[in-house]
């Protein structure tokens, strides 16, 4: 039994990491080695791809910074709006709260790609294109359904007595949220924040249509641009190097916040 299990674990790891490891391998291979991987090539290993990626114009870390900026601002905006809304949903009468939750669930299920065209027109008419801060507005909006549902579940789990006690201590609504309720749901807030950050970091179609200035591209769009630069010959070596560099922050994020991500996704599944 344990032997069989070990086999399954190895298969799972190979399936999850294999494609990434192949990118890692590719990123260090010289172009000759890529074309003929089995033949004996004199200069097999090289850092040339990394050099090319880091020295390109704009340099690669620029995209990482852009994504970091969009991810952070979207996450903050999402939480600022979703926290009070989630609290309100737990305190409103059921005849408002229940339909609201159903609508949120429907919105969370909706394939948001279909919204790109209308959002593009919004960006055009309000001149929000090529503005990373403005990009966080649709991101925060698209994150609302999931964020509100997750945070609502967390608020609902708090004992009602705690808020009553805070009221008797003389705390108004904002003080209760600030000193008691929001600190108490910190774990749920953390996992929500990470999920929203991941979404904003990875989002493609809206970033693709809102941002055209090369120095403002987010990571996913920049990566796709490399692919689109030529249909016939993609610079796979350089691309693999970019993949590796672009994956490192996310891999670290997942490894560090694994518990939060899992609890966020699972509590969404259990309570949503």
């Amino acid at each position, binding site marked *: 039994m344990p032997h069989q299990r070990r086999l399954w674990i190895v298969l799972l790891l190979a399936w999850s990491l294999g494609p990434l490891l192949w990118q890692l391998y590719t990123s260090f291979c010289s172009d000759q080695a890529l074309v003929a991987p089995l033949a004996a090539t004199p200069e097999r290993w090289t850092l040339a791809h990394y050099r090319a990626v880091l020295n390109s114009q704009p340099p690669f870390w620029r995209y990482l910074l852009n994504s970091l900026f969009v991810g952070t601002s979207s996450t903050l905006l999402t939480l600022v709006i979703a926290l009070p809304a989630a609290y309100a949903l737990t305190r409103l009468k059921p005849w408002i709260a229940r339909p609201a939750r159903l609508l949120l669930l429907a919105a969370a299920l909706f394939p948001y790609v279909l919204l790109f065209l209308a959002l593009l027109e919004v960006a055009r008419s309000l001149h929000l294109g090529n503005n990373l801060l403005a990009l966080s507005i649709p991101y925060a909006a698209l994150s609302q359904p999931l964020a509100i549902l997750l945070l609502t579940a967390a608020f609902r789990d708090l004992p009602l007595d705690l808020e*009553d006690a805070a009221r008797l*201590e003389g*705390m108004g609504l904002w003080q209760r949220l600030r000193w008691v309720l929001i600190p108490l749901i910190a774990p749920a807030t953390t996992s929500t924040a990470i999920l929203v950050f991941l979404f904003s970091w990875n989002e493609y179609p809206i970033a693709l249509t809102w941002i055209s200035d090369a120095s403002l591209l987010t990571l996913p769009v920049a990566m796709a641009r490399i692919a689109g630069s030529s249909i016939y010959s993609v610079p796979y070596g350089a691309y693999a190097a970019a993949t590796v560099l672009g994956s490192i922050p996310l891999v670290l994020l997942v490894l560090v916040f694994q518990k939060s991500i899992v609890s966020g996704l699972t509590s969404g599944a259990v309570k949503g």
Partner: protein
Amino acid sequence: MSLRLSNIGRRAGQQWILRHLELTVSDGECLALVGPSGCGKSTTLRLIAGLDPADEGSIELGERDVTRLPAVQRRIGMVFQSYALFPHLSVADNLDLGLKIRGIAIQERRRRVSDVLERMRLQERAAHKPAQLSGGQRQRVALARALLRDPLIYLMDEPMSNLDAQLREDLRPELRQLVLRDQKPVLYVTHDQHEAMAMADRIAVLHQGRLEQIGTPSELYRDPVSLFVATFIGRPQINLLHTDSSSVLGVRPEALQLQADGLPCRLTHLEWLGASQLWYLDSPQGTLRMVLAADRRVPETIRVGWRPQDELRFDAVSGRRHR
């Protein structure tokens, strides 16, 4: 007169869960609210605290009408059944938070918190989180928080129901002394009539959202207005004899005595209570409970009677007491 409830009512949907409640509690008096679950006793506390709005009537606190005043402004010292300590804050921070919110200067806050910690014998626990405390310690923190509020009234919602029986008995005198020290009215909710009699100067019995009777423990015991109060107050429970179709006769187990011309009975079961013993008797009128001195031997034949002045007669339909 420091708390006065006039014709208080509270609805849940179309249903009245509390109605026509009239109560006064004076400074330095402890009134216990008792009744089975769902009788409206916790609702009464929540209305006084302002946590729920009253649908009818008015509440006066310290000579002031507070019926429309939000909970935040009412100055209530409340101890919850769950204690409702903020789990993310240390004991000291739990006590400090309310003072900070009310804008009291930091030195003053430190002084008050350390005073109350000392008074509650919690100094060593100041830096601990509530989860690290024992049940008794949590209860003392909850009480300390209520004391620091400098309240106009203390409201206690089953404050001891989460403690074990021994600790509960030990704490009663201490709790009574602590809350009555600053001469404020105390409202004490419990479902345990024993605790109510031990803690309270007067007891109010609630039943289905109505005030059934209010009085001192001995008044309720000796002179219940209804069958409900008679069965609710006093353990072992009062004996009920259905003598005729229109009335029910109640006799306390303590009032039964062995007498030659009494009802013939057979002993079915005997419980030792320490200083006394409790007999379960099979009589022509049904099962009787009887309390006797511990040294009493079981006689050959048992005949049981009572004095006429120990009889309590109730209407069989309404449950009201016949006078």
